[in-house]
């Protein structure tokens, strides 16, 4: 009779019998990445120092942002949902560093789980530096949704880029419904934000940032109307961001008139061949 060796158990962890099928290991990356630690006081303090002493100076050195519309946030009570177009890796740091302090200190950023949280080290860095939380960008994931709603209920502001990723060609992509869904479910207001020119700083496909002036416009907060569904609200948010883009390209009055006429230029660009979209972009 051949006895099974003890192998240090129970002083050491048990070995797994070869005759027992292993259950799939619980995932610790992607949407399952645990970021609760990054919202504890020590991590928040470290993040505040990082944003104020490193990210903000770096962003300002590279992008020299011109900021408009911050006064529209004066009467706003947190928590709120900041919704912006997304062209560049610099967008998150730029937006975070420009938020008024009463929002900035308690803000999380919805980040693509498959991109920013695919590895433990990468996820840890983003959770610490930006307060990033993993969300599924291809579909509404119940776990992501419940987590972000829980954070809003706990008083955390949320930054979300509803295009689901950086622009591939300089034009904005269609806004997905996630931000609107959260606004409807939580009852919290949405602040539309337009980031202009960041595609020149660090666009998709570029390895390192290069200096360029950018503009940031905060819009008037939007709340879901009674009975309004997420799809309608998402369209309204997209129109608001487009109006801010128009405001930056022309002036406030012109943009308001075009918005009232329903003639705000699209931020998603013409539905045309790639070369024509690039051509149209140059004329903006």
């Amino acid at each position, binding site marked *: 009779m051949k006895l*099974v060796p003890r192998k240090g158990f129970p002083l050491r962890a048990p070995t797994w019998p070869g005759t027992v099928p292993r259950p799939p290991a619980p995932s610790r990356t992607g949407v399952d990445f645990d970021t609760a630690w990054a919202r504890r006081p020590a991590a928040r303090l470290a993040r505040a120092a990082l944003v104020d002493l490193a990210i903000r100076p770096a962003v300002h050195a590279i992008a020299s942002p011109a900021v408009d519309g911050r006064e529209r946030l004066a009467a706003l009570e947190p928590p709120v949902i900041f919704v912006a177009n997304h062209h560049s890796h610099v967008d998150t740091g730029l937006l975070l560093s420009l938020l008024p302090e009463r929002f900035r200190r308690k803000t999380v950023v919805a980040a693509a789980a498959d991109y920013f949280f695919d590895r433990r080290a990468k996820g840890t860095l983003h959770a610490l530096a930006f307060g990033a939380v993993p969300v599924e960008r291809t579909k509404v994931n119940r776990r992501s949704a419940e987590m972000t709603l829980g954070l809003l209920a706990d008083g955390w502001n949320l930054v979300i880029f509803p295009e689901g990723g950086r622009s591939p060609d300089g034009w904005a992509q269609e806004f997905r419904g996630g931000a609107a869904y959260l606004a409807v479910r939580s009852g919290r207001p949405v602040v539309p934000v337009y980031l202009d020119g960041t595609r020149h700083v660090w666009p998709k496909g570029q390895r390192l940032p290069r200096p360029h002036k950018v503009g940031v416009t905060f819009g008037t907060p939007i709340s879901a109307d009674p009975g309004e569904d997420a799809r309608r609200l998402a369209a309204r948010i997209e129109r608001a961001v487009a109006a801010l883009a128009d405001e930056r390209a022309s002036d406030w009055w012109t943009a308001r008139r075009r918005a009232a006429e329903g003639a705000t230029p699209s931020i998603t660009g013409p539905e045309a061949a790639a070369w024509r979209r690039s051509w149209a972009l140059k004329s903006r």
Partner: protein
Amino acid sequence: MSRPGYVLEVDRSTPPVLFHHGEGFSLERLPVGSRVIYPPEPVKALADPDAAVRRALLEPLGTDPLPARLRPGMRLTIAFDDISLPLPPMKGPDNRQRVIEAVLDLAAAAGVDDVELIAATALHRRMTDPELKHAVGKRVFDAFAPHGLLYNHDAEDPDGMELIGHTDEGERVEINKRAATSDLLVYVNINLVAMDGGHKSVATGLAGYPSLKHHHNVRTMQHSRSFMDQHRSALHSSNWRMGRLLAQQGPPIFQIETTLNNDTFPKPFDFLQRREWEWSARDRAAYLAAASGLERIPRKAARQIFQKILSPHAMSSVQAGEVEAVHAATTEQVYRSQLVPVEGQTDVLTMGLPYICPYNVNSIMNPILVMCLGLGYFFNLYRGKPLVRQGGVLIMHHPTPWEFHPVHHPSYLDFFEQVLTETTDPVEIEAKFEEGFATDPWYIHLYRKSYAYHGVHPFYMWYWGAHALEHLGGVIIVGGDPRAVRRLGFKPASTLRDALEMASDVVGRDPSITHLHAPPLLMADVS
């Protein structure tokens, strides 16, 4: 959803396997190729047990709702299972408390004044007041016990028993007089294993020696394969004959049966119900702390620690009404939470015996109870065929101390000293000694006035193992007191390795080995 039971095949990566060892445990290495049978994980408990109890009383099986059977001026008796159930005793509120309070609520609403509560002890020891209070709850105890309306059954009270009649096979059916002369007898059960409940509740729990001897005997036990399988149990058949006679000629009975999930051990002992390869760091730390701590303290102190364990058992079902309809539903629930399919028998069956059996709650597990738990209860936890083949070897892990509780088990001590020194053959023991012990006035006095098990009870414990004794080629106890083990007629071994070596003399050099990883309880469905 809870996982079903599991049969593990031991390989080189399998960690050592847990064996209970009385008030302790050990991790043992099993030979490669051995099997380990793990119980199913606890089934889901009822979300609102009190609501489920009320529903069961209002929508019973095969009979009118309980309120329709209650009326002012009637004699109502509520009998309930005694201290032997559940194991370990459960954290309050006990199932009995929940059910009895619900029944009394309805009785009060119906204006029933004449209510008595009886602990159905049969020939077990009387329950103490704290034990009764734990079982029925403080509210019920305080309302009934001070008025003498909550008490233990007394099977030797010359004026306390009532003859109901005889079955076709001549079995005498005699039960507690108060119960027999009631307008309604409500029986409140906790069903831990498939043998419990059904007609056995009243026909055994409220009976005495003249009735019990018809089924608590060697022949019945040897013809129960096993007594946990109702369709192949002579014990069950006898109880059913008696129960059907009671249904025809006895008091109207309203049976209420409850089942428990298999959640047996509370923290920090909950590692006892986990599979070793899934033990967390906390489980391992708890094991190491408990095992090393228990080794260093006196056995008496260890016993006190273990006897204080209250299980986190939760009610998994409740059904009420006509006895047989109720018990069919109950048995289904018990099978659902305990049955584990096992392919084929084994040459050697190993088991670690825990610190508790139905007859040593708040007491001492003496050598006779060790035999009863191993060869009676655990050996019989099968359906189909015994786990171990005819002529195979049973290896039990238990300290088997030469110790007896002087108050609870006086006749056990005499059985050990006077009977087992002469013979261990159940047939010879029954023929030669049973009657004398059963009718001994001193034992009867101690049963009635003290807290002693009846004089005949150790015989029943021995008969409980009669099927196993007839079936097995040898029994070895690992880590037991060698003198006590030899007195039982078994072989002592210092280590499991020695025991397996000794077993190979009986079953050959390369035997199949199966370990019963219980408790928590399981029932092997052997094909």
